[in-house]
C-alpha cells in the first residue's frame, strides 16, 4: 500500500492489515513520521516524540507477526502507532503537562490507561501538546507554545487536548488519548472534525493521569471514526486497584454498534444548552436527521443546567487548587532561584512556574474554599451538582440519549479566546454538564458550520450524552450519524 492509502486506514483497519501482513507496522509508523516531519513545524501538535525508538518497536512487531503462525493470539492494537496527551504518564518519558513547572519532569511510572494501550500492543510514538494542566480550551495556554488548527493555521484546534486532536487530524497518529475534565476531549475533537469520547467517570483509571480536577478528570480516545473510539475505549477501560474511584463498566460490542438504529428511540435536547433557546443550524439538521430515521426528538427543560458553568468552575478550581499545591519547587519540577527562605521559594517558584490561566484557577479555587465563601460557593456548588445528577437521571428515564452541540462555536481564531475569560468559560456550557454528572458523552462530526467571522466553513460536532455506562448507546448513535443513516439494502 502507498503511504496515502495507509494513512486513510482507520486504526482498527490498520491493526487488521498488520496481522494480515498487508501493511507493516514499520510502514505505518514511517508514514506517520513523514506527516509529522511535514506538519509539525506548522501545527506543533507534539511536545515530544521518539522516531527511532518507534520504528525499532515497529520492526520488532513486524518480525513477530511474520514468525507467528496464529496471529489471532496477538494483542488487538499490535503495531498501531498512537499518541498520548502529555498529562498521561509514560515511564522514562517527559510529562510536562504543558507547564514550565514540569518542563524537565520525567515520569517515574506509567499511567494505567497507557500501560493498557502498551499491553494491547500499541506503539506510543509521542506526547501531545495541551493547555497547561488541562486548563483551557484552545491549547494556547501551553508553556511550549500553541498548537494550531491543522486545517487553518490562523485558528485554534480547541483544547485542552488540542495536541492529540491536531495530531490525529493531520495523520500524525492513527489515534490518540486525551483527557477530559470539562470538555477537553470533546471540544477539540469537534473543532478538528474527529470523534472524541468522554467515557463514564471512573471507567478509565486515573492512576498516572496528572490531576486537574479529580472528581471530573477522565481519559478517553480521540479518533477519526466511531469504531476506533469504541475499540480504543475497550482497550483502556477497567477497574484499577490503584484508583479507588475506578470501576469496571461493560465494554462496547462493536458489532452491535454497526447494527444500531435510532428508529423508535426517544431523544431529548436540553433547552438550556441552546443559544436563545431555539434549535438552529447544524443541530436542527441533526434533529431532522434523527426524526427522518424514525426517532422522536424533543426539546425539554433542565433548568439546573443554567448553573452548570458556575458549578463546574467552582468545583474544578477548588480541586485544582489542592492538586497543584505539590508544585512548590521543593521535591521536583521547576524551582526558582534566588529564594533563600521557604515562603519566598514557594512564591517565586509558583509565580514563575505557572501560567496566567492556571494562576487564575488557583485564585478562584482558593476564593471559593476560603472560610468566608465556602458555604455560599463551594457548598452550594456541591449541592447543585447533585441536582444536575438527579436532573440527568430523570432525563434518561424519558430519553434514550440526549443531543446538543459540542461547542457553541466552530474553531475560533488564535488569540481571540483569552480576551474575555468569562465568555470563554460560558463557551463550555454544552460540555460541562456531562462532566458534573460523570456520564459518558461523545462528539461526532456532523457537517460544517460557518465560522463566526464568516470567513470559512469548519467542522461541527454533535454531542451525544448517555446515562452512566451508556457507552454502547451513545457510540451506536454516533456510528449511526457517521454512517449517514440506515444502510440501504
Amino acid at each position, binding site marked *: 500500500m502507498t503511504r496515502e492509502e495507509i494513512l486513510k486506514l482507520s486504526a482498527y483497519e490498520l491493526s487488521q492489515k498488520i496481522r494480515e501482513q498487508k501493511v507493516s507496522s514499520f510502514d505505518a509508523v514511517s508514514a506517520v513520521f513523514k506527516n509529522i516531519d511535514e506538519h509539525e513545524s506548522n501545527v506543533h501538535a507534539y511536545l515530544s516524540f521518539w522516531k527511532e525508538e518507534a520504528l525499532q518497536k515497529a520492526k520488532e512487531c513486524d518480525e513477530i507477526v511474520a514468525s507467528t503462525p496464529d496471529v489471532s493470539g496477538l494483542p488487538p492494537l499490535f503495531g498501531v502507532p498512537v499518541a498520548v496527551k502529555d498529562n498521561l504518564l509514560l515511564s522514562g518519558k517527559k510529562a510536562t503537562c504543558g507547564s514550565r513547572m514540569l518542563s524537565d519532569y520525567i515520569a517515574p*511510572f506509567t499511567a494505567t490507561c497507557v500501560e493498557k494501550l502498551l499491553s494491547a500492543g500499541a506503539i506510543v510514538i509521542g506526547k501531545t501538546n495541551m493547555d497547561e494542566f488541562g486548563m483551557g480550551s484552545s491549547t494556547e495556554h501551553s508553556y511550549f507554545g500553541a498548537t494550531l488548527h491543522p486545517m487553518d493555521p490562523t485558528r485554534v484546534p480547541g483544547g485542552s487536548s488540542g495536541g492529540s486532536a491536531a495530531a490525529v487530524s493531520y495523520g500524525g497518529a492513527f489515534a490518540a488519548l486525551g483527557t477530559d475534565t470539562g470538555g477537553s476531549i470533546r471540544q477539540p475533537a469537534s473543532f478538528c472534525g474527529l470523534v472524541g469520547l468522554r467515557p463514564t467517570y471512573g471507567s478509565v483509571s486515573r*492512576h498516572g493521569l*496528572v*490531576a486537574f480536577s479529580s472528581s471530573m478528570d477522565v481519559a478517553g480516545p480521540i479518533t477519526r471514526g466511531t469504531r476506533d473510539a469504541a475499540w480504543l475505549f475497550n482497550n483502556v477501560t477497567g477497574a484499577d486497584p*490503584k484508583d*479507588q*474511584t475506578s470501576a469496571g463498566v461493560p465494554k462496547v460490542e462493536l458489532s452491535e454498534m454497526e447494527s444500531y438504529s435510532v428508529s423508535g428511540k426517544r431523544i431529548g435536547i436540553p433547552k438550556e444548552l441552546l443559544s436563545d433557546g431555539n434549535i438552529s443550524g447544524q443541530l436542527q439538521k441533526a434533529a431532522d436527521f434523527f426524526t427522518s430515521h424514525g426517532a422522536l426528538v424533543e426539546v425539554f427543560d433542565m433548568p439546573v443546567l443554567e448553573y452548570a458553568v458556575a458549578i463546574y468552575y467552582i468545583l474544578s478550581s477548588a480541586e485544582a487548587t489542592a492538586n497543584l499545591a505539590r508544585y*512548590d519547587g*521543593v521535591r521536583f519540577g521547576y524551582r526558582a532561584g534566588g529564594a533563600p527562605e521557604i515562603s519566598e521559594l514557594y512564591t517565586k517558584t509558583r509565580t514563575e512556574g505557572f501560567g496566567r490561566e492556571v494562576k487564575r484557577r488557583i485564585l478562584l479555587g482558593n476564593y471559593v*474554599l476560603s472560610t468566608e465563601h465556602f458555604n455560599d460557593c463551594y457548598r452550594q456548588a456541591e449541592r447543585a451538582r447533585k441536582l444536575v445528577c438527579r436532573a440527568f437521571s430523570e432525563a434518561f428515564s424519558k430519553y434514550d440519549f440526549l443531543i446538543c452541540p459540542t461547542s457553541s462555536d466552530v474553531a475560533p481564531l488564535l488569540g481571540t479566546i483569552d480576551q474575555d475569560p468569562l465568555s470563554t468559560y460560558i463557551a463550555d456550557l454544552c460540555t460541562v454538564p456531562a462532566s458534573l454528572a460523570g456520564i459518558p458523552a461523545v462528539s461526532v462530526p456532523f457537517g460544517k458550520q460557518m465560522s463566526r467571522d464568516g470567513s470559512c466553513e469548519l467542522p461541527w460536532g454533535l454531542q451525544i450524552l448517555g446515562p452512566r455506562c451508556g457507552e454502547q448507546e451513545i457510540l451506536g448513535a454516533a456510528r449511526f450519524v457517521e454512517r449517514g443513516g440506515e444502510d440501504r439494502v
Partner: protein
Amino acid sequence: MCEYETVIGLEVHVELKTRSKIFCSCPTTFGAPPNAHICEVCAGLPGALPRLNKKVLDYAIMTVLALDGEVTRQSRFDRKNYFYPDLPKGYQISQLYAPIGTGGFMEIEEPQKRIRIHELHMEDDAGKLIHDEGSGMTKIDYSRCGVPLLEIVTEPDFRSADEVVAFLEKLRTMLKSLGVSDCKMQEGSLRADVNLSVRKAGDTELGTRTEMKNLSSFRAVAKAIRYEANRQWKVLCAGGSIDRETRRWDEEKEVSLSMRKKEDATEYRYFPEPDLPVLFISDENIDEIRSILPELPDQKRIRYIEQMHLPPYDAGILTSSPEISALFEKTAEMCGDPKEASNWIMGEFMKILNDTSTLPENISMRQESLGEIILLLKEGKVSRASAKTLLQAAFAEGAVPSEYAEAHDLWQISDPDILGKAIDEVLEKNPKALGEFLEGKTKNFQFLLGQAMRATSGKADPTSLSSLLSSKLEDFRQK
C-alpha cells in the same frame, strides 16, 4: 491571688501499628534510613492516587467502639490544605466533615471522672524536617509521610494535669491492649496537644485558650499544663488578656513559647477528598469488628476483682499495662493462686521495674518465669530469699529458674538425715545453750535454730529444720 480553675481539652495523635501506610503499601517501620520508605503515592508525585489501607479503617473502628463512641456510617476523607516542606502533596488527607467516630468517653479513677470524647478521625502523617546546624541547611525525610494517624479529640473535661496524665495513661493501655498502636511517646507514636484556658473559679464561660505542642512525655505534659495555667492566670491577674495562639513547650527551659498567633494561622480550606470514595460502614462491619475486640483493661479489672477476688487497688495496678496483666494471668494460671501471683507482681516484680527504670513494654522476661518460681517456693524446693534471687536472674538475664537454682546451688535442703546431722553437730558444739534450754530458757531455741541454719549455709528448709530441732530437743528433755 483569687482561686482559678484550669480547663483542658486534648488532641491525641496516635500512630496506628499497621504494617503498611494509610494510602500506599510502603512499610511503616520506625527508624529506617531517611527516605528509604517512600513511593509515588506518599511522596505526592504527579499522577499518584491514594488507596485506603483497610486495616487503618478497622483499627479506627475498633478504637471508636472501645471508647463507646458512635461509628459514622458514611465516613469520608477531606483535604486539609497548607504549604509546608514536610507535606509533599500540599495537603493532608484528614477527616473534618464526617470523621470515623463521634462521642464516647473514658472513665479515669483518680479522681473518679468521665472524660467525654468529641470525635476520632483518620489522617496521614507528614515527613520530618532535620535542621543541620553546621551547614544551616534543612533536610527532609519523607519516610513518615503516610504513616496512619488516629486523632482522638476530647471535650474540655479536664481540670488538672493529674487528670490529663491519668487519662493518657489509661488511653495508652487501652490502645496497646487493642493492638492498634505502640503508643511510644519518645518515638512520636503517641502525641498529645493540650488546649488550655483558665477562668475564675465558679465562672461558667470558657476563657481564651492556647494550644500547646511538642510534649514528648507524660511528665512534660504535666509540667507544661502547670506552667501554662500559671502563666495565663498571671497575665489575667495583671489585667492582661490571653492571645489565641499555638505555643511550643521547651522541655529544657521548661517554658512554653509562642509559635504562631491564630490570626496569622493558615486557613486550611478543607474540602471533601475526591480521590477516595465515601466509606459505607454497615452494621455487619461493626458487629464483626466488635466480635474481635480483645478484653479491655476496664473489663479485666472488674474480672480480677469479681472473679479472682483481688483488692480493687491491686486490680488497677495489674491492668495498668497489657504486659503486666499478661504476666499476671500467666502466673496466676501456673501457680493456681491469683493472690500469691498478685503479691509477687505488686511487690517484688514492681520493685525490680522501679529499680531498673524499666517500662512494662520493655520487659523481656519469659512470661512463665514467675509462675515457675512460685511453684518452686510452694514445693519447698527454694527458700523465699532464693526465690527473689531467681526472679532477679530471670528478669535481668532471662534465666530459667530451675536451671539457675541448680547452677547456683540454691536448692533448699529438706532431707531429714542431712538436717538431723547438722542439728546433732550444733547441739554437740553448744552444750551450754542446750543445757539452759532444757532448764527453761526457751529463747535459746532461736539461737540453736540459727546455728543449725548456718551449718547448712542457709540452705535448709526453715520449716523442716525447725520441726526437726523441736523434736530433737524434746528427745533430750525426755532423757
